[in-house]
C-alpha cells in the first residue's frame, strides 16, 4: 500500500483523457503532491475501443451475403421454436419449387433433418452445434463451401430451434423468417420480442389445428406489429398445404427476374 495516499496496488488506475488526478481512481481528492518511493507495478491505462462485440460475425455475414449475391442465391434464415414445422414447410417447398433448393440444417445433434431434406430432393448440409444454441456466420460460411449451392437457387438456413439466441446473429441471409405454430400459443411475440423484432416475415403454421387450440390469430398479428410495425405475416398449414401459395408468392417476389 502507498503510505501517503493509501492506494492499494491492486486498484491502481491511470486513466487517460479527462482525469487530472494521478490516476488512482479513488475519490479522496488530496491536492498535495507526494513523492512515491516505490513504483506502482500495475500502472494501467485506458484504451478507447468502441468496437461492436459482434463485429467479427457481422463481417463474416457480409462476406456470406456478397458470396450468395454473386451467385444469385436467395438465402432465407428460418427461425422458430423446436417443433414449429420448419422442416415440414421445407419439404413441401422443395417438392413445389421449380428452382433448385439448398438447405443448411442447424441442430444441436443428429442428421435427422438433413436426411429428411435430401429425401425430399434438395441438397442439404447439417451443422451440429453441440451445446450451441444458434448458428453464426462462420458456421454458415463453412456450410456454404460444403453445400456449394447452385447459382440461381433458393437457400434455406434452418436455424437451431430456439426463439431467443438466433435473433442476434446475422448469417448473411437476404430475409429472416420466424415460424410460429398455433400449438405454441399466441403470446409468443410479447414473450420473445427480440426474435419478432428481427423478423421480416412471420409464418403462422399448423392452421389446420386452429379448431383444437386456443390461439387468437388476430392477437398474434397485433402483438407482432407492436414489436415490429413493418413485419409481414402469413398463415398456412405446411401439412395440408392450405395458405401455402402465399408463401410461394412471397419467395417468388425475392427472386431475381
Amino acid at each position: 500500500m502507498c503510505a501517503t495516499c493509501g492506494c492499494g496496488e491492486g486498484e491502481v488506475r491511470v486513466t487517460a483523457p479527462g482525469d487530472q488526478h494521478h490516476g488512482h481512481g479513488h475519490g479522496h481528492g488530496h491536492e498535495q503532491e507526494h513523492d512515491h518511493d516505490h513504483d506502482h507495478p500495475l500502472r494501467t491505462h485506458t484504451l478507447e475501443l468502441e468496437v461492436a462485440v459482434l463485429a467479427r460475425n457481422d463481417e463474416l455475414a457480409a462476406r456470406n451475403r456478397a458470396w450468395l449475391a454473386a451467385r444469385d442465391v436467395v438465402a432465407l434464415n428460418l427461425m422458430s421454436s423446436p417443433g414449429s414445422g420448419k422442416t415440414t414447410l421445407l419439404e413441401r417447398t422443395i417438392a413445389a419449387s421449380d428452382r433448385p433448393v439448398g438447405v443448411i440444417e442447424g441442430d444441436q445433434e443428429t442428421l435427422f433433418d438433413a436426411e429428411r431434406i435430401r429425401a425430399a430432393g434438395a441438397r442439404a448440409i447439417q451443422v451440429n452445434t453441440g451445446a450451441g444454441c444458434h448458428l453464426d456466420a462462420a458456421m454458415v460460411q463453412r456450410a456454404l463451401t460444403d453445400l456449394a449451392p447452385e447459382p440461381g437457387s433458393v437457400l434455406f438456413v434452418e436455424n437451431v430451434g430456439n426463439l431467443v439466441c438466433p435473433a442476434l446473429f446475422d448469417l448473411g441471409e437476404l430475409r429472416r423468417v420466424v415460424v410460429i405454430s398455433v400449438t405454441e400459443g399466441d403470446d409468443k411475440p410479447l414473450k420473445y420480442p427480440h426474435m419478432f423484432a428481427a423478423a421480416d416475415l412471420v409464418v403462422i403454421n399448423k392452421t389446420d389445428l386452429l379448431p383444437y387450440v386456443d390461439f387468437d390469430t388476430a392477437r398474434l398479428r397485433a402483438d407482432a406489429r407492436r414489436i415490429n410495425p413493418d413485419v409481414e405475416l402469413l398463415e398456412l398449414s405446411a401439412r395440408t398445404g392450405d395458405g401455402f401459395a402465399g408463401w410461394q408468392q412471397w419467395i417468388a417476389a425475392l427472386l431475381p427476374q
Partner: protein
Amino acid sequence: MHELAIAESVVSSVLERTGEQHVCVVRLRVGRLSGVVPDALRFCFELATSGTALEGAALEIEHPAGRARCRACEREFELADAILLCECGSADVTVLSGHDLRVTSVEVA
C-alpha cells in the same frame, strides 16, 4: 444461452487490439434492446476469459435504455424494453437506439 458466444466475442475483439497486454477492466455498453442479459453475460465472462490475457479482469456494464420516435405524434421517448408503444397509443414507432452491443474501453497494464 447466447451470452457465452457474446462473452467469447468480447474476449476475441479485445485481444485483437490489446495483444499480450494484461487487461484489468473491460467496459461494455449493452443496450436494453440488444437481447443480451448483463447478469448472464457476467456469468459467462469469467468462463470465456479463463486462460487468456483477460483472466481476472473486472467487467463493467453500462445498460442504457433505448430511444424511439413515434411516427404518429412525432414525440421522442425512452424505451425500457422491446415493446414499441407511444403514450399516444400508437405502436407505429421508429427505434432510434438501444441495440448497442459494444466494447467501449479497456484498462490495460
